[in-house]
């Protein structure tokens, strides 16, 4: 559910903002100490998408958002709320 709201909010972003958001989410994910909760197949898809320069694409951004939402739920909620707030302005 959170990931769906996040993807909805992302639609409003310009491409540069989306790049910056991907960087922020990836940093949260790679800095997390809870990565054992992220399914390995999701982690590997995020890994490959970064290498291929495809993390910005919706399909992979959704995977990244999902991984962050389960490893760092509070931080993910804050990012989503911020995006929604920015969208309302």
């Amino acid at each position, binding site marked *: 559910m959170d990931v769906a709201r996040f993807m909805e909010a992302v639609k409003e972003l310009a491409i540069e903002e989306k790049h910056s958001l991907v960087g922020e989410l990836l940093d*949260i994910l*790679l800095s997390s100490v809870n*990565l054992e909760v992220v399914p*390995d197949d999701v982690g590997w898809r995020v*890994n490959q998408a*970064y290498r291929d320069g495809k993390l910005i694409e919706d399909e992979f951004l959704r995977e990244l958002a999902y991984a962050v939402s389960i490893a760092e739920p509070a931080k993910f909620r804050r990012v989503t709320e911020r995006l929604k707030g920015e969208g309302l302005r």
Partner: protein
Amino acid sequence: MTTFSVEIVPKDPLWKIDLLTYIIEELGFSGVWLSEHPHNRSSFITASSLLKKTSRVWMGLGVVNPYTINPFVIAQLAASLTEVAPNRIRIAIGAGDKTTLESIGIERVKPLEKIREAVTIIRQLLSKKKVTIDRVHGRLDFNPRSSVLIYIGAQGPKMLQLGGEIGDGVLANYSNPEDLEWAYNEVRKGIERTGRKIESIDIAAYLTVSLDLDPEKAVKTAIPYAAYILCGLPEKMMERMDVRGEKLIKVKEAVQKGDWLRLYDVMDVDIVKKLVIVGQPRILREKLGEIIDIGYSQVVIGAPIGPRILQTLREIKKAIDEAKTRLCI
């Protein structure tokens, strides 16, 4: 010339370690040290996977402990890795910390002798020679595809000297420039005994680093690492830092129990600052010059690095590039 590498602790899933290694290579670091600890993933098995998906960075396994892995097997593992990635394998051998070894039922007896013997066995086996030392005899039945540099991981004066005497390199596990200068001079004593030139071995400052724009977050991240280092310090170092008595006992107890929350209560920030390069990224900028001036030929950016790993790695790379320009290295 000074080279720069990054330590990765293989306690996280392989997909993360793999991605981090890729980014470290992308940022231009020379190598990755994969730490070896019985509680974490095996550094050798992890390296085997990482080496297949990188093309340039060398990989150091260490500090590998001959009390937990038999030296013959260490040689076998290192030689096997040379087939995966020739000329990109290094290993560091060290006696580890007493607390961890005791927790898995191993007594740390005569560490200097143990390391000297282990390095002799490993070096002979990697050179395709037959080993005949005490109860150990035999050879590898396959050819290593390249040489493997053997480092000594050291903290105490005698181990640092031994590193200078027998190592292709030494990992001096300190972060404070004052301690690093002392450690460098101990390594030099060992080198002088052998008549080798100091330039012939790679002396690495194995720093523990925790950086963030928010210094409090950096300190919080550093505390478990500082406590772990503190427990393994030689007595003289503890005296220099004025860490004794009840305070030290409380830290040791918390480390042994893995009670990280308790550590936040019992560790002094001042001690953390003596053991870890901690604070805003500018602190590393200031210290890098001092460390390179001492003579270190390698600087290892050791874990935890910081609470925001990617941002911090990029800041560190900038600091290194600035230092290189400033010092013309």
